[in-house]
């Protein structure tokens, strides 16, 4: 861990001012916000992140940690902790995909610490990225190559990859946000803005080191969901080697508007498989307006992974992803309230 100066701020504008600095991308900026610290300290100890200034935004908790469900709409403050959101009765009841994606993530201790804002900005678990003694990692050192392409890549992505990076986006909550078409409130020096959550992350393409559309100094203040009663029929299915405390090998977030056996609307997001939180409109299109049965679920899963590309150890992932999605869809269809 490199030396840095530590500073607390007690207003969003102070945070934005403190974070205002020239840099290529938000996540590699020399000024980093400290929320739960569970990504930041981890990567600083590994010498992967080397901020020179840490701006502790936890004093903003009083204003940025609300969990509000009002007239069906949801507002989740960026500093709300994963555990509090996961345990929130209204969220559990009306937006189960949110509660489940958080409850199935990390551990009780980490969820007590980690904030929602930090969660969506967590970094990949690619070993070549996390260990600075590996020479090739385009995400860490642009232009250095990608050791994972021909390396150990069982957990790497099969969707949204490029020849420059196949690192999996590791989080769970982001898929739930996609499945509920959430938006993100952002404060910055240029003022506040709101974007669709799906526009927050960017695929690696030619520039794997750029992971989000946030500008340096911008701070996420909240996530919002325009609630619908049918979002009760939503779930998060997470597949992993062990029963808990592990990132997804595959996951599916499904929100389903099912009436008389016919799919009126469905939103599908896939985790553990893609370089970014992955929404599958292809799969949604197969289902919309149709009855949901095993056959149809399979077709949707085929569509979701039509573009999937495995290489080496992760060649099994498209099939696992399909099975995961089929299972999630059928389980969602049979949910009873």
């Amino acid at each position: 861990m490199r030396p840095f100066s530590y500073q607390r701020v007690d207003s969003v504008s102070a945070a934005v001012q403190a974070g205002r600095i020239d840099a290529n991308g938000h996540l590699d900026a020399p000024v980093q916000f400290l929320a739960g610290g569970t990504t930041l300290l981890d990567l600083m100890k590994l010498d992967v992140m080397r901020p020179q200034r840490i701006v502790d935004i936890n004093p903003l908790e009083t204003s940025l940690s609300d969990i509000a469900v009002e007239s069906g709409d949801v507002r989740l403050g960026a500093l709300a902790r994963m555990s509090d959101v996961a345990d929130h009765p209204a969220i559990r009841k009306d937006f189960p995909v949110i509660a489940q994606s958080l409850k199935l993530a990390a551990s009780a201790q980490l969820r007590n610490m980690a904030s929602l804002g930090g969660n969506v900005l967590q970094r990949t678990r690619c070993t070549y990225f996390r260990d600075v003694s590996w020479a090739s990692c385009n995400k860490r050192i642009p232009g250095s190559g990608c050791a994972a392409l021909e390396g150990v890549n069982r957990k790497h992505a099969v969707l949204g990859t490029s020849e420059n990076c196949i690192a999996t986006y590791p989080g769970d909550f982001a898929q739930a946000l996609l499945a509920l078409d959430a938006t993100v409130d952002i404060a910055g020096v240029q003022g506040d803005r709101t974007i669709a959550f799906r526009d927050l992350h960017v695929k690696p393409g030619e520039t794997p080191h750029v992971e989000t559309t946030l500008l340096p100094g911008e701070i996420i203040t909240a996530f919002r969901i325009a609630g619908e009663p049918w979002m009760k029929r939503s779930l998060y299915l997470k597949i992993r080697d062990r029963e808990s405390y592990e990132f997804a090998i595959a996951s599916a977030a499904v929100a389903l508007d099912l009436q008389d056996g016919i799919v009126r609307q469905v939103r599908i997001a896939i985790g553990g498989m893609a370089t970014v939180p992955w929404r599958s409109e292809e799969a949604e299109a197969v289902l919309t307006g149709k009855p949901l049965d095993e056959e149809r679920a399979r077709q949707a899963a085929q569509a979701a992974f039509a573009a999937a590309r495995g290489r080496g150890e992760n060649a099994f992932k498209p099939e696992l992803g399909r099975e995961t999605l089929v299972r999630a869809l059928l389980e969602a269809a049979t949910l009873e309230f």
Partner: protein
Amino acid sequence: MTISESQVGPISEGGMFGKPVPRIDGRLKVTGAACYPSDTPMEDTAHAYLVTSAIARGKIKAFHLEDAKAVDGVLDILTWENMKGKVRSVRFFAGGGYASSTIMPMSSSKIWHAGQIIAVVIAESFEAAREAAYKVGVDYAVNKPKAGFDESRPQPRPMTNPLTRSDPATGDAEKAFAAAPVKIEAYYSTPTQHHNAIELFSTTCVWSGDQLTIYEPSQYVHGLKNGVARQLGIKPDKVRIISPFVGGGFGGKAALTARTAFIALAAQRLNRPVKLVATRKQAYTVSNFRAETQHLIKLGAESNGQLTSLSHEGWEVSSRPDEYKVAGTETTAVLYACPNIATRVNVIHADRSTPGFMRSPAEVPYIFAIESAMDELAVALHMDPVELRRINDTQINPITDAPYSSRALMTCYDTAAKAFGWASRNPVPGSMTDGDWLIGWGCATSCYPTNVAPAEAKVTLAPNGSVRVQSAGHDIGTGAYTALAITAAEFLGVPLERVSVELGDSTLPPAPVAGGSNATASICNAVADACKELRHRLVTAAVASNGPMHGLDRDMITFSDGQLRAPDGQSETLMAASARLGFGPIEAHAKYMPEIASKTIKLVGNAMLGKGLPIMASGTSAGDHIQYAFGAEFVEVRVHRRTREIRAPRIVGAFAAGRIISPTTARSQLMGGLIWGISAALHEATEMDHRFARYVNDDLAEYMVPVNADIQDVEVIFVPEDDTKVNALGIKGLGELGNVGTNAAVANAVYHATGQRIRDLPIRLENLL
């Protein structure tokens, strides 16, 4: 969970053997007061941080230390350039020496394996040392490394030349295999694994004049002491190792690693204490590990199930310079009755660190192979796998005809099968389901040789009647503190609260390595001998002419409730009795020599023990007999019909392991072993980037071990067993017994659930898609 106490008749009057009592060191552990070596309070400590090699094979061309030295608070940086020739080489542990590897990091610019220590940075703070370590620049000359096995299966080699090979063999296995009506022939493999004890590898060194004190978690303080002394060229009595608590060992803390001498030298150069807590990542290369193995098994049987041919060829990986192998064919060759047996073990050298002991070193990979093959044979024969074991059960070593001292394998099977409900199993694969989950039931044999080592112990009876037990043994979680206290309480007839035990300090009487499941047997016998000696002296005084029991038959005097008791009801407290022996404490120092020790061990055993050299009488060749503990393990797995994740919610093991001294801790050991077995079967593997011969999942988020939610019902059953051939107390040892059969039991259950036979561990969902 149930626990049936093992009661095999009293050995003394204390009534303590076999009684479930709480761990005597429990309070220290639940309050955070137990002082593990890195917890030792110390003034003015400097902190060390290791720099390890990013390449597996080649040379260091140059260091760039300017940036590192410029870090505020950096005190010293050790590299081969200033360490060359400072540390003498010592012999390899497995070759009768001290070192876990003969690779001597920082003795030259040569790199033998990735993760090799190439520099040690010492600074005022941990933070500064870590920062500087990351700033150490290294130019390497890189050669292409060999990572381990090639991609293709190894080719079998000729096995049968008993004259030139020491591998166990009898008859003509090849011919019998050719003639057998039912055959199984298959390759199996197990992956690289690491101990991953939760405690990190730490070393703190403090010099006081020419006296060096080392705080380091150790499974063998006498080995560490003598080994470091030799490396540093100082007298062993100038070195003291303190390691009263060890946060898990599993074999990783048994032999001397390279780090210790460097920390000692750093402390000497700076003339202040230096503390190293190696990182979790570094734990994968600074000590040893379980190397990957491959196996080719051929079984031939009559159609009634009787084995006619068994051959087992194993391949193991070792480092370039060290020939380390576990060679579990010693056990697989004697497991079942069979007239024709052939075995062979091959070692492949690669650019890796030297492997070593990891919980049940030899048995775990080799029993996985043979017990999977036995299950395949049962399937081929349409026979219940338990019945196949029964048909081939033996009470003698099929090669030498030497008897097992005792072998209750089939009792274990029958007991465990009953507890598990095996009788209701439908043998057809995939036939048992629960909703979307396929259920599979499998079983396998567990066994572990009963090894016993020379050991010393001192027992002191204080004037106030309290008892102090001292031995340089180790409690690495095994319950040694408790078992030794129970032993003293048993023989001296004192309440357990009156007994204190000191372990893990090289100034105490030497005891063997905590490994090979020998420690309880060896040290309890030493403690018993010391207690018997104290009894003798107390009784002698009591029946002497001036004693209260004058004229009574000394053999009739017993010890219980803190009293000497005569058959006529007369009694005297231990306090009073010891007072008559003189003022102050009375003590006895016993040197236990295993009953089964060979002539050579009897001759040199005590001297070797004192020098911290590995010395152990093996259960695989105990003179006129062989001695093993046995068990039978039954597992239920569940595999999801669609997504194929595998869970093991239920496991039952029944074990016959001789006398159980401390059932509470013994049960925990076996339970831990069973869970280790599930872990190895379904979770654990250290993965390697073969292009670079480097580990890639070297942390606890990526190296999978089970979490609480993976484990549900674990049942441990003790099968009573009385066997005083193994040693006077009839203790067989069980720290390594639990996880031996589990790998195969899980794989066999997975087959039963899915019809898919997975022969390469770990079994993961992608194998079943």
